[in-house]
């Protein structure tokens, strides 16, 4: 078979794939995509797990290491069998959060942190690069098998393949910006390729078993006799490889792409759970037979990695060989296409866009078409990734067995696993924990697996391999911490994942998550409770128009307008500008996340809405059942506390009433006492006078005087009572007019001047020349009361009363200070109350209402009267009315 014919077939095959992809995209656009969305297509698209490494490499692997190759399929089988545990959650999270890549998932979970996104992206690029190189190598080698001049022009072939794949990927992978809109064309092309590679491998297998070996029975004999039978399974490698492939199946960017991002209906998982393991089962069924026959019939120096091609060629089955070639070609191309789409999305969303956004302060609202930037950055990323793969291929010299390179890539991507498992099962996982785990794992992987893959004397010198960097034996790349003798792969997987998980857990435990992280953590871990929406927006000052302008640049004009119109309609509004509700912001963020990733979408909306993050109320909203119950019970508590308060208020009111009633009783009994006491004397003496004949005229005179005095006392008491009642009820009419303070004082002193109660009064006339606007008679009443009190109570031998007028804090005050012993402290407290009197009743002569009336009068006038406890004698201060004083 000529090389030209091969090239022609190859070209036709690629053109056919183009046609199918194009047709599928057209169907999808026309809305006739129902069968494109079937569980069968989903299952077949998962087959990109089986790359050229699997197609060619598995046979080589089996020829070298026996059954160990099958671990690479058993891991994914176990993951699919356990879909109810893990994949179901992952797919639901991916769909509800509009996740665009594994980096997006991790970054979204850890508070939409872009640092984590960048880390995972870096890991993905570094891990995918050798993988792409591997595909280029296998395609190149398979071409070379048919070449007339073997071993020549390999790099050119690889370059052509890489360029062609880049073109196909850019054409079909970046047509649609919204990753969630799914790549129908690409997916259908992959499904076709999946069928081709399965059919090809089965065909070669059946040819080998039934034609070359003569049936399953004799096939077993051939295997038993071959060197494969001498390869026993090494338990530690066996276990580690199953675990590793299971992790890689979940974490590989391309697997995440087809499994989660391109998933149309989560129930497709149920079908894939058995169909995909079946696919893997069939893919591996004939691997050992082909390897055994190849080892049997081909010369020793033949490359076992190419047995799938060389065995049919050996027996001149050109058509079968061509089919096998197409199978290998399919495996390589489908892997490269999907991996390029997945990784370029990550690079664009987590590296290029954030940089672009930060360079344009003021952000997406200003100008420019974000869509074109996103598309361009994705196309450049695809080209860049394939270029990197090509360079890796050239510089690694196509060295190393295919399987070895594949396992290195697996180990690299598996570093995401602890953070991923933490993301969906552990609410306590924090961004710092995730970053620490991934960084540590990535570093250990680079040192113990990736860099050594270039061989001793490659990037790491032989001396470092032997003695460690700077002679530190503990850090030898393949014997970390001095533990020697482990298989290099087991060694790398063990240390990288162990230290990764340790760092992840430890740092998570020691650091605190942000509110957004806690929110996302709760949403992710409880995805089956909160899958409807993930609250995150508390509204804000964003204008609907600004949002529309920005969304148009990302979602496209018509799509954005449709979204806004439908939202406005659902809010019951006309036109295309809905209210900016938190629900709408969440929806918009999800839609935008489908185009530019969660972190970027969040950041862009933050710029517009003013960056209000998550409030405590939002956290409560997503809190779990226990928290809701807690909330309910705290409401009950609040209610009962309110009831308690009401009861307290009632209690207080009741106490006040009781106190009032007691006061009233006390007041009445006081009045009774005050009235009855003079009446007793009056009645008694009048009876004496009425009957008494045996008394002197002096006695008669004296008793009449007592009756008279007591009658006056009664009258005064009644006057005072009436006065106080009027004052307290506010019924008093004030007769205000302009008057001088000294005049009022003169009147008061004149009224109190009685010979029995003489007291020397000292005044300061210049200070008293103050104009007032007030009720002078009432003020004089107060002064009289105070002066006569001094006269009654001052117990000095030469009683003196000092009247001082001065300013204090802007108020004019009049102090009445005598030279007696003052009022005892216990009396001070109550003396302004009604019927409170000093100890000496008889001297008082009044009913104990004087000071109470003084205080009421001063309050009516707008002033006050207080007692000054810190003076030598009794000291009363009258604070004069303020406003009226100024008005005068």
């Amino acid at each position, binding site marked *: 078979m000529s090389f030209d014919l091969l090239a022609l077939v190859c070209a036709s095959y690629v053109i056919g794939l183009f046609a199918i992809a194009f047709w599928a995209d057209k169907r999808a656009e026309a809305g006739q995509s129902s069968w494109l969305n079937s569980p069968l297509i989903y299952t077949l698209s998962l087959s990109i797990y089986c790359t050229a490494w699997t197609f060619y490499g598995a046979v080589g692997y089996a020829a070298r290491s026996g059954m160990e190759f099958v671990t690479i399929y058993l891991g994914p089988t176990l993951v699919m069998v356990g879909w109810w545990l893990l994949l179901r959650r992952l797919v639901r999270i991916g769909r509800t959060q509009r996740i665009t890549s594994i980096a997006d998932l991790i970054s979204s979970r850890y508070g939409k942190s872009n640092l984590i996104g960048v880390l995972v992206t870096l890991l993905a690029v570094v891990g995918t690069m050798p993988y792409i190189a591997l595909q280029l190598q296998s395609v190149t080698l398979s071409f070379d098998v048919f070449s007339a001049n073997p071993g020549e022009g390999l790099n050119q072939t690889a370059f052509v393949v890489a360029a062609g794949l880049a073109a196909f990927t850019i054409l079909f992978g970046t047509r649609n910006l919204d990753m969630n809109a799914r790549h129908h064309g690409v997916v259908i092309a992959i499904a076709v390729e999946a069928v081709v590679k399965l059919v090809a491998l089965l065909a070669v297998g059946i040819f080998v078993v039934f034609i070359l070996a003569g049936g399953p029975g004799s096939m077993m004999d051939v295997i038993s006799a071959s060197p494969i039978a001498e390869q026993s399974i090494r338990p530690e490698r066996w276990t580690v490889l199953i675990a590793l492939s299971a992790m890689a199946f979940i974490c590989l960017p391309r697997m995440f792409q087809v499994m989660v991002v391109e998933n149309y209906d989560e129930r497709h998982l149920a079908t894939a759970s058995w169909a995909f393991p079946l696919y893997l089962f069939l893919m591996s069924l004939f691997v050992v037979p082909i390897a055994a026959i190849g080892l049997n019939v081909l010369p020793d120096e033949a490359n076992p990695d190419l047995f799938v091609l060389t065995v049919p060629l050996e027996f001149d089955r050109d058509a079968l060989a061509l089919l096998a070639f197409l199978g290998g070609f399919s495996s390589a191309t489908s892997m490269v296409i999907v991996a390029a789409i997945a990784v370029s999305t990550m690079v664009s969303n987590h590296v290029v866009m954030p940089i672009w956004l930060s360079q344009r302060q003021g952000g997406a609202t200003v100008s420019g078409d974000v869509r074109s930037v996103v598309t361009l950055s994705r196309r450049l990323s695809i080209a860049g990734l394939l270029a990197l793969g090509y360079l890796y291929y050239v510089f690694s010299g196509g060295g190393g067995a295919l399987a070895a390179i594949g396992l290195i890539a697996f180990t690299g991507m598996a570093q995401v696993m602890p953070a991923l498992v933490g993301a969906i099962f552990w609410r306590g996982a924090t961004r710092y924990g995730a970053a620490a785990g991934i960084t540590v794992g990535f570093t250990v992987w680079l040192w113990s697996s990736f860099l050594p893959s270039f061989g001793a004397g490659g990037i790491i010198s032989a001396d470092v391999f032997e003695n460690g960097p700077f002679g530190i034996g503990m850090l030898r790349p393949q014997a970390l911490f001095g533990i020697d003798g482990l298989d290099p792969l087991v060694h790398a997987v063990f240390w990288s994942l162990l230290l990764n998980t340790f760092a992840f857990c430890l740092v998570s435990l020691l650091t605190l998550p942000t509110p957004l992280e806690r929110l996302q953590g709760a949403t992710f871990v409880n995805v089956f409770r909160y899958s409807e929406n993930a609250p995150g927006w508390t509204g804000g000052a964003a204008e609907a128009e600004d949002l529309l302008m920005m969304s148009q640049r990302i979602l496209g004009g018509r799509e954005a307008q449709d979204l806004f119109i439908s939202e406005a309609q659902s809010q019951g509004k006309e036109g295309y500008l809905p209210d900016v509700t938190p629900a709408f912001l969440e929806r918009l963020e999800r839609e935008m996340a489908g185009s530019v990733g969660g972190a970027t979408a969040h950041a862009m909306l933050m710029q517009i809405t003013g960056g209000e993050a998550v409030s405590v109320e939002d956290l409560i909203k997503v809190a779990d059942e226990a928290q809701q119950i807690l909330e309910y019970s705290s409401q009950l508590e609040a209610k009962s506390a309110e009831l308690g308060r009401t009861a307290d208020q009632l209690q207080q009111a009741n106490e006040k009433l009781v106190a009032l009633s007691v006061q009233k009783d006390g007041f009445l*009994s006081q009045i009774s*006492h005050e*009235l009855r*006491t003079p009446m007793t004397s009056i009645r*008694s003496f009048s*009876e004496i006078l009425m009957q008494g004949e045996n008394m002197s005229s002096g006695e008669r005179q004296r008793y009449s005087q007592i009756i008279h*005095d*007591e009658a006056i006392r009664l009258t005064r008491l009644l006057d005072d009572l009436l006065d106080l009642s009027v004052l307290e009820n506010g019924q008093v009419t004030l007769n205000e007019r302009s008057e001088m303070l000294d005049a009022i004082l003169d009147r008061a002193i004149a009224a109190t001047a009685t010979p029995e109660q003489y007291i020397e009064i000292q005044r300061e006339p210049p200070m008293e020349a103050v104009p007032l606007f007030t009720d002078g008679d009432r003020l004089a009443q107060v002064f009289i009361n105070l002066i006569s009190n001094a006269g009654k109570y001052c117990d000095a031998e030469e009683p003196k009363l000092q009247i001082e007028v001065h300013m204090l804090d802007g108020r004019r005050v009049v102090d009445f200070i005598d030279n007696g012993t003052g009022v005892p402290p216990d009396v001070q407290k109550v003396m302004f109350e009604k019927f409170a009197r000093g*100890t*000496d009743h008889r001297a008082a002569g009044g009913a104990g209402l004087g000071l109470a009336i003084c205080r009421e009068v001063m309050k009516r006038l707008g002033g006050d009267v207080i007692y000054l406890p810190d003076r030598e004698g009794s000291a009363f201060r009258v604070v004069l009315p303020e406003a009226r004083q100024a008005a005068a």
Partner: protein
Amino acid sequence: MEERKVLLIEDEPNIIEAIRFILSRDGWRVDTHSDGKSAVEAVRERAPDLIILDVMLPNRSGYDILNDLRGAEETHDVPVLMLTARGQTKDRELAERLGASRFMTKPFSNREILETVRELVG
């Protein structure tokens, strides 16, 4: 016949004068005391045949004094006539419960007080 002694514990001078006038005419010896605090001692000193006790006294209430008198052996049986200007029912009840022999509300008639005193000592 020995002179009969009345101790009048009251603080209103005019009322003291009136009661002294009424009782001394009837042949009673009237001692007076006007402070609440030292009233019980005064009773012990004077050993009166009858005590006339006002309720509203300076420093100490008549009820407290009555309570003390009834609690001590030597004064336990001395008749006590209580006078009050607060004529409420509960005041009367309180006085009776504490052991007052009689309870009179001010203002009283001269004949009424004289008869009561005679009755209590006779």
